[in-house]
């Protein structure tokens, strides 16, 4: 099992750090796409199968909240979980993000563990990438 990840942040450094933390944390990442703002993020979604999105809020051209609300209107995108990673952390902004469909919220600066934990909470898998409710032995039938 592995996940395709999309990272949306206008800072190149922040995208690199998120990507680095993801790969170091043992998170099972298959492909990793990145985008500099919401519009670019949506363009990636048009072409690529994405399982989870990590997105900033404050970005030029299209911010993260607008990207979330556009995603909601498309049946193919509306169920892709989005974790917001933002410096903005007022209660109202956090609520706004959740109301727009975000499944998690990480405040910058963050520790690798914060990211890892939120990812697993949102995807419903434990630290080893296994589903919490997997029964023993169910995998021995996999080829």
């Amino acid at each position, binding site marked *: *099992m*592995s996940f395709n990840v999309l990272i949306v942040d206008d800072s190149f450094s922040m995208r690199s750090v998120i990507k680095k933390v993801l790969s170091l944390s043992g998170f099972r990442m*298959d492909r990793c796409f990145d985008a500099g703002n919401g519009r670019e993020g949506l363009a990636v979604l048009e072409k690529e*199968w994405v*399982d989870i999105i990590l997105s900033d809020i404050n970005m030029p051209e299209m911010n993260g909240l607008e990207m979330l609300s556009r995603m909601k209107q498309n049946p193919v995108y509306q*169920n892709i979980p989005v974790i917001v990673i933002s410096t903005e952390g007022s209660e109202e902004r956090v609520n706004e993000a959740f109301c727009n469909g975000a499944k998690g919220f990480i405040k910058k600066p963050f520790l690798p563990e914060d990211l890892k934990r939120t990812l697993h909470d949102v995807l*419903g898998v434990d630290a080893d990438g296994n*589903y919490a*409710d997997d029964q023993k032995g169910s995998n021995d039938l*996999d080829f």
Partner: protein
Amino acid sequence: MGKIRVLIVDDSAIVRKILSEELAKYPDIEVVGVAPDPFVARDKIVTLKPDVLTLDIEMPRMDGLTFLRKLMTYYPLPTIIVSSLTPKGGKLTLEALDIGAVDVIAKPGAAYTVGDMSTTLVEKIRVASRVKLTKRENPEAARRVDAEPIKALAQTSNKVIAIGASTGGTEALKVVLTKMPPNSPGIIIVQHMPANFTTAFAERLNNLCQITVREAADNDSVTAGTALLAPGNYHMILRRSGARYYVEIKTGPMVHHQRPAVDVLFKSTAKYAGANSIGVILTGMGADGAEGMLEMKKTGAATIAQDEKSCVVFGMPKEAIKLNAVDYVLPIDQIASQIVRMV
């Protein structure tokens, strides 16, 4: 010719095991992998490049519909839905067909053994492997293509329109029926579909159409503005009493391995409505309906077949055309207007 490569997506280890074992009995089919969830499935689709997917639509931990939408958008692959016979399963299945699944098969149940299922499934896998899927445009755009419904007819007619469909028919029927005017002549339909799915399918069509669509009950009259869908596992037969057309719903032997069978409907239509009827044969595998359509034509009925290009599977229409039973071969979006012109 190479084997048909199949990937089984099902969260139940038992179902994965049963399906793998059953399909292993057929030399032309190879189960290249199994996946318990969408993430594993995606990996395996990319690496194993299967020809056909079987997908359990009801999985506790995964939204099968979401998975299917992504599949149809990013890696279109002929997909057969494996579904339970519950009303919820029926509803999900119809939505799955809407999204682009090729066919549906019911999970084994009391009166329906694993052996029964595997024979049917293998047939469906063979058909699905020949289906050409193209990347789906944005669903909203696709919906807009559907032309306007036809306005009411000047005069109500007592003609009977008999329609038969199989694989790909849920979409094809939607295209035809949504265009039919509110005072359309009475319509009787056989769509090959497992029992229990027909109720939900009729409801769904009813919500989309100007005409009333419902699952037929025994002795229902065929009236203008109403389409009757044969219930799964029963044949539907047209009868006439004076000026009133009505249907009989009854069990009986399978015809072309199907119940309801299109031939049963068409032959009874030929007998009781003759020249006062129109026969329409839509996408589907096999030959069901071809003989019945020929009988209809011989009694003076007008007949229409869906063209190869717009068919998911050009089987039943092809057989009917071969028998010289067809007057018009038309793309799916022109069939409704042709019917209206002829009534």
